[in-house]
């Protein structure tokens, strides 16, 4: 029986690179998988875009919206959102128009008689409303009122503006004039008592700006002189989100305020998470007595009251009045917040340390740094990132709270918290001053929280098999 003797040619070496069983889906790394999951979570994605938008608003905003957040536009105090109002340019230091007064025989004192001919002198504008009226016989004084609504009776004439001597039969109102309708009333005063009779004049106040102010703010063309510019109409700066109680632009203040809020919000968690990682990692990895001692110290730090330390640091820093408390705030946040992260990391490390693959790696001669870098750290990363995203809104909130109570930034530096504090005073009359900064705080905190939620879902290993 002749059998075939195979030769070397009959054999062909298999290509070592060829795959045996082929999987028809692309292989995904852990982070690719997290991203895929996160992307399918619409809520988290929306939050992520808000966070990115916020960062752009903060970093790019002031470059595009070049308005000084400290500039006080007293012509437009507490204005609701508006785009470029027009204003009449008026001359500086115009004397109030004088009204000559003819003596009236005091024979016919009639307390039921209201002052006649209450009238305007000149155009009523926000730099002054000039009023005059005919004298009443026998009065001791005149009382002038200003109402924002039509008066109903003699007890409802609005704000008492001034009490004037009988020889004064004109008045210039300069007080906090807004561009709106006012109702001026004049009442005679006899023997210290106001008469019931009154005369009312409705006045619509126009927006105006002093020439010097317009010039200072560069609202006039270069060659404008008082002679040419006065009487013309110019466009004031626009305030898309309105102005605050000193006429400062809300949008600019929100942008600059975001810098403070986000600086604390991102820096503090970043630093204390790194400290917590190192501390917790070391405790967990070494275990034993060192672990016990380290964690007891962490417990001790957790028990320290934050606000007290914040104040102590402020003193220890030697900060004088009127100096920003941002430094001590950052320090206090970092020094007192790391134990939470440290505990989390230690727990994770303790668990991972006992895993079979760690034991296997160790038997194969892996060194400690290799184990930490290759196996432990990547496995801790997930929880760490989640705790970081949850720490950010907490820190932003803390900053807002501290600035709200006046422990944070100092005027004129804005911060969302201090803006809320300013806005709360005028909440009923000018709600936008409170609403915008409050909205920014709420949306930011919500966005970071939802993003953290989404990240946690995406990173949870037990949910990895799904979808």
């Amino acid at each position, binding site marked *: 029986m002749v059998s075939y003797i195979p030769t070397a040619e009959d054999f062909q070496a298999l290509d070592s690179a060829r795959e045996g069983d082929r999987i028809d889906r692309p292989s995904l790394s852990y982070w690719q998988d997290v991203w895929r999951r996160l992307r399918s979570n619409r809520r988290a994605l929306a939050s992520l875009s808000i966070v990115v938008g916020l960062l752009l608003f903060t970093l790019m905003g002031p470059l595009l919206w070049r308005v000084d957040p400290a500039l006080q536009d007293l012509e437009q105090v507490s204005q609701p959102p508006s785009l470029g109002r027009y204003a009449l340019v008026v001359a500086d230091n115009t004397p109030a128009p004088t009204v000559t007064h003819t003596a009236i025989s005091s024979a016919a004192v009639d307390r039921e008689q209201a002052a006649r001919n209450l009238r305007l002198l000149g155009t009523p504008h926000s730099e002054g409303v000039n009023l005059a009226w005919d004298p009443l016989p026998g009065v001791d004084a005149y009382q002038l009122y200003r109402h924002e609504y039509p008066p109903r009776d003699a007890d409802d004439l609005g704000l008492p503006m*001034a009490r004037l001597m009988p020889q004064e039969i004109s008045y210039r109102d300069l007080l906090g004039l807004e561009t709106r309708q006012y109702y001026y009333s004049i009442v005679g005063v006899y023997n210290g008592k106001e008469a019931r009779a009154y005369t009312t004049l409705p006045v619509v106040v126009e927006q105006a700006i002093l020439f010097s102010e317009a010039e200072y703010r560069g609202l006039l063309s270069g060659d404008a002189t008082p002679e040419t510019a006065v009487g013309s109409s110019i466009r004031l700066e626009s305030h898309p989100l309105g102005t605050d*109680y*000193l006429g400062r632009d809300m949008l600019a203040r929100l942008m600059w305020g975001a810098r403070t809020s986000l600086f604390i919000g991102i820096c503090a968690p970043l630093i204390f998470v790194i400290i917590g990682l190192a501390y917790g990692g070391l405790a967990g990895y070494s275990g034993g007595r060192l672990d016990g001692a380290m964690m007891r110290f962490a417990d001790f730090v957790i028990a320290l009251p934050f606000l007290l330390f914040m104040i102590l640091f402020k003193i220890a820093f030697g900060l*004088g009045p*009127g100096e920003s408390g941002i430094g001590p705030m950052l320090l206090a946040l970092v020094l007192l917040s790391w134990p939470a992260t440290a505990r989390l990391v230690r727990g994770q490390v303790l668990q991972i340390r006992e895993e079979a693959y760690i034991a296997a790696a160790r038997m194969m001669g892996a060194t400690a740094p290799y184990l930490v870098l290759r196996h432990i750290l990547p496995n801790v990363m997930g929880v760490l990132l989640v705790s970081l995203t949850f720490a950010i809104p907490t820190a932003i909130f803390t900053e807002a709270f501290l600035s709200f109570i006046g422990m944070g930034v100092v005027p004129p530096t804005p911060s969302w918290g201090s803006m809320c504090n300013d806005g709360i005073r005028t909440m009923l009359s000018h709600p936008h001053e409170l609403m915008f900064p409050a909205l920014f705080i709420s949306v930011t905190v919500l966005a970071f929280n939802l993003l953290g939620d989404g990240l946690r879902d995406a990173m949870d290993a037990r949910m990895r098999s799904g979808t």
Partner: protein
Amino acid sequence: MRSFLSVFAALGLSASPPLLAVTPAVDPVNNEISISLEQEPQWLTTIKATDAESSIVLDHITEGLITRDVDNNLIGGVAERWELTDDKATFWLRKNARWSDGEPVTAHDFVFAWQQVANPQNAAEYAFLMRLFPNGAEIIAGEMPPETLGVEAIDDHTLVAHLVTPTAYFIDLVTFISFRPVREDFYRAQQGRYAADAVNMLSNGPFILTEWVHGASMRMEKNPYYWNRDAIPLDAINAPYITEDPNARFNLFMDDKTAIADNLQISAMKMAMQEHQKLKSFSDGTVYYLGFNYREGRSTANLNLRRAIQSVFDAAEMTYKVIGVPGNLPAYTLFPRWLKGDDGQSLQAQYPPRKPDLSVERGREYLAMAKQELGVEEIPPLTILLSDQPQTAKQAEYFQNVMARNLGLEIRLDKQIFKQRLAKMSAGDYDLVMAGWGPDYNDAMTFADLFTSWNANNRGRYSNPEYDALITEALQITDQRRRNQIFARIQDIIFDDVVIIPQYERGFIYAQDKRIDGVRRYHTGGDLNFNYTFIIDEDGSRGVPD
């Protein structure tokens, strides 16, 4: 909006639970009204009281020798008539003045009370007032017994107060709470608990304090033994709420729980107008100003720096555009508009104050001179002390901006509570201060002596021999014409030397229930007085007390 408000009112309520039955703002049936107090009165004894709330209550439950009518004219209180000479004041007391236990009020009660004010054991803040009388200064210093005070009761109904120097305004001054009577036997019987509670008090005023729940509420009822009880229309005044928050007090008013809301903020004024409430204005006589620290080494000790600030600070702009509350008036002098001159008009009309000629260029010239004199390239940042009131912060931020914009000066804000601000001022730990000064008595001297080198309230340590000499002279004469000339000269010194920069004379807007009238307000003593307040009948006529 109503329901929105009541939520806030409810919040205000929870802060101080009303222990009295809920009383309406105005109760025509029982002839009572309700008010809110800002704070718990600190001391309800006239010997030690200093704060505004104590003064308000004490002005209802005690009466001095001289008092004021509803139009603030001086009228006899316990004293029926009086006589003031250069060296003494004599008071003849009315025989029908009684304490709330029916005993008569005698001259001995005044002598005892005034001795107690001077007694260093009581450490009364207003003890210095007793320096007016012989031995007063020595008693305060503990060098002589209180019984040696130069005030004597000739008999039960004649009181003689000897005066160290002629004091033109003594009759006006004697309306002050520290000059009220205290009955010795009752005071001693309380064994140190005098005026600690409603039961430990004896009244000689129109009202008696009948309930006092500390920190929560008070009730005052008409005093049946008061000599002039028929002139007092109300039967009781309730103070069921004590809260410092002006918004809470305004909301209590809007909810018809109190009859008056003082010190309205801009948003509250707008709300009150929307609800068609009656608004009134009141000037409390206080002048607010920018004070400087004159201590060695402070840049603010430099005259040209102060002139630079004076040249760019516009009091009118701040008053009208930043404060924006009617009743506040721009100030150009330390002496407010209500002070009287000697020719029938006001002191300001007689001696009109000079207004600074505002100019940024001149301000910068002064600043350049100041830098040269101080030998610095840049003026170091200046710290401005201010109170923790939100309105003050707004004014300070405005000032900060004006200085940065016109002079390039960096101003740092130092907000402090009142006591801390005073401590820092005394220690000289500031450059500028937003300060205010309210009158203690009805005379320009209450303002003028503020910057004498010996005045403890001259916390910036301004010192000017001419100023001191002028005040020393004015203190020793009663000739009103010469005194006013001196005050006019003081006014000039303050302007030329920029001792202070006046900012505004404070005014308030307050809302008053339309059903009441006769609320007395005055710029010294216990402001907000309801002794003559009455409830208007529904037909619009004046309610008649029964």
